[in-house]
């Protein structure tokens, strides 16, 4: 085999030289790269980030690239990001919570590259910011549809982990439910996974067995939707319009990363990028709700959406917000009682008498009164 082998090797080397010779650098143009933790084709979290990437590419005309299925914080992440840097990408957006520490390290090591981390809380003063969205706003409106849709007055909520983002979404949703249906309860069941169609489906089934005829979820698959559709009930989705995947689909609070990603890339291009802890809402376009005309409360949902867009309505600033044990937490936008910190139950979050601020929303660790289930 030796002669054939040498021949093959020689041609491979020739091709290699040819291939490397063809590579050219375009200079200092802005190029944006995205790192995703799971495959983009899941109609969920990563799918919407890729939609945002494509949208931003179209709006800004900037070349973008992405990698998917990159484990959190290991050598794979390091290699992918380093290759993007080597290839001249100067905006790098990392879209999973577990990338936070590694992104911070990259940002400090590469001052000429802009890093934006989605869903975390770290940043620096020069080239590293974080981005997230106020999903609780459209969740509230989705809750209104759920409250109107349920006949058993029992709504199930399949949820991943008891972290503030998820808890906040559940509370906002439950407040929306209470607005259109004061008798309905929201039962929460935890899956301890972001993406596991089997577990999500089983958890959904347990909620259906307990009497729920409307289900929603904070997960990455559509398994909850399949389960409630099979049971003849109504599905409130999440992430994206899931009407094509799920027959029982009614509405969904959705992500739209295009405006935010376009803004980051434009700022990078113009040299005006400043890191911030960016927490955008419906008015910024990062979150939205798909309002179904078939819902009996569609008109009211549109009204609330308009009020939120106009800055006239705050989900947690309306009358009293009461915790499961009957404690009044907020009253007309003012903190009445704090709630225990998840880490140290003897430490209370929230200064009685102070106005509701982002800090207390970001640390949310209680369930409102029409939620059934425990925090973990």
């Amino acid at each position, binding site marked *: 085999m030796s002669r054939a082998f040498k021949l093959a090797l020689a041609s491979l080397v020739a091709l290699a030289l040819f*291939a490397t010779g063809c590579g050219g650098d375009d200079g200092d143009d802005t190029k944006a790269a995205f790192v995703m933790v799971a495959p983009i084709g899941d109609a969920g979290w990563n799918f919407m980030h890729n939609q945002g990437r494509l949208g931003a590419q179209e709006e800004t005309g900037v070349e973008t690239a992405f*990698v998917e299925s990159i484990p959190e914080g290991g050598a794979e992440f390091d*290699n992918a990001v380093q290759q993007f840097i080597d290839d001249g990408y100067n905006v790098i957006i990392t879209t999973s919570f577990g990338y936070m520490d590694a992104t911070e390290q990259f940002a400090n090591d590469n001052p000429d590259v802009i890093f934006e981390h989605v869903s975390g809380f770290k940043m620096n003063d020069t080239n590293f910011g974080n981005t997230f969205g106020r999903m609780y706003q459209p969740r509230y409106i989705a809750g209104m549809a759920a409250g109107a849709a349920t006949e058993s007055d029992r709504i199930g909520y399949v949820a991943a982990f008891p*972290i*503030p983002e998820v808890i906040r979404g559940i509370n906002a949703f439950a407040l929306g439910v209470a607005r259109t249906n004061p008798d309905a309860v929201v039962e929460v069941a935890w899956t301890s996974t972001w993406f596991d169609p089997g577990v999500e489906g089983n958890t959904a089934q347990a909620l259906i067995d307990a009497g729920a005829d409307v289900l929603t979820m904070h997960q990455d698959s559509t398994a909850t939707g399949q389960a409630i559709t099979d049971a003849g009930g109504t599905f409130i989705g999440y992430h994206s319009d899931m009407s094509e995947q799920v027959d029982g689909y009614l509405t969904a609070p959705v992500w739209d990363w295009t405006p935010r990603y376009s803004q980051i890339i434009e700022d990078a291009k113009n040299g005006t990028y400043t890191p911030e802890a960016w927490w955008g809402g419906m008015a910024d376009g990062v979150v939205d709700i798909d309002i179904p005309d078939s819902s009996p409360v569609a008109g009211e949902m549109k009204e609330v959406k308009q009020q939120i867009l106009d800055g006239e309505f705050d989900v947690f600033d309306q009358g009293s917000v009461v915790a499961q044990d009957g404690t009044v937490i907020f009253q007309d936008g003012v903190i009445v009682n704090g709630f225990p910190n*998840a880490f140290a139950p003897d430490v209370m979050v929230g200064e009685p008498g102070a106005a509701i601020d982002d800090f207390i929303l970001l640390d*949310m660790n209680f369930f409102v009164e029409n939620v059934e289930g425990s925090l*973990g």
Partner: protein
Amino acid sequence: MRNLRLVRRETPLAGGQFRAVLVGVVIALLVGVILLLATGNNPVSTYLRMLDGAFGSPRAWSNTLTRAVPLGLAGLAVAVAGSMGLWNIGAEGQIIAGAIGAAWVARLAPDLAGPLLIPLMLLGAVLGGAVLALGPALARARLGVSEIITTLMLNEVAIRIVRYLVNGPWKDPEGNNFPIAPEIPDQAKLPGLFERANIGVLIAAVVVGLFGWLVSRSAWGYELRIAGSSERTAEYVGISLRTKILTVLVMSGMFAGLAGGIELTGSASRLVEGVAGGWGFAGIIVAALALMRPSGVAAVAVAFGAVQIGGLSIQTQGVPAAIADILQALILFGALAAAVFGNYKLVRGEPATTLDTAGGAA
């Protein structure tokens, strides 16, 4: 076809295992060329990118070696047990237990100087892995309970424990309520070696090298292999099977635990639920590719790390992750198949005697 069966070769294929695996990998790469062409990707630039991603720069080397550390130690954990016929399927959980052990030490003595703290954390990691392996080891040695089941099930237990810790008592007070432990102190991080690699690479190399040598060359290793091939022979020559099972399984846990400690003090900055990253399960593949010989683990781990790192890096030039995954799987499968055919051959016809099959299955 119905009569085809695998029979052990009387003498392994000429040129040895290495060449067989090389041929297997080349065949896999050729199949990959078809796959890449069919999906509209340039196979030459893809393979060059893969090579470049794994070995093209000191940086790439550092990532490949960093990935090889948990793969090698987990592979050793499986192979050392495997060389006496035991199956440690619990490396994933033992890595977690190791990371917990190391994190615990850092919690107890956060102000200790690095040169003291790091060795103590790694000791904590080794003990953590040993603790998780002790139950299955005792159950197997004393009661004959299958270690396959017990080590496998303890993976779940370890995941539940780390989940409890990062959601409860060890949750980072400054972590915005996320399920993460606090970052380990700065002086607890392993010193760097070059680029992104830390001295964990050296530690793992020494451990894997030493135990590879011990199992294949020392009297202790010889006894191990005898015990693995025939219990009766072992008893006849006076080897205490119970003690051997106990030490070997606990030792296996220690190797995987060390991997967890190196991950925590090296790559990861804090304890999180996903600290083991699936490398414990990948260790089973590493050990299988090394034909359960601890002496082969180091080379396999580096090759596996290269496939992992280089395989993912081809995505940065536009090859979809699914294709990258298939390529990685093809390469591993090709190597594994070739490793088998280096020692076994396909034979047509009924078994000549029952003894023949018994020999082939050993």
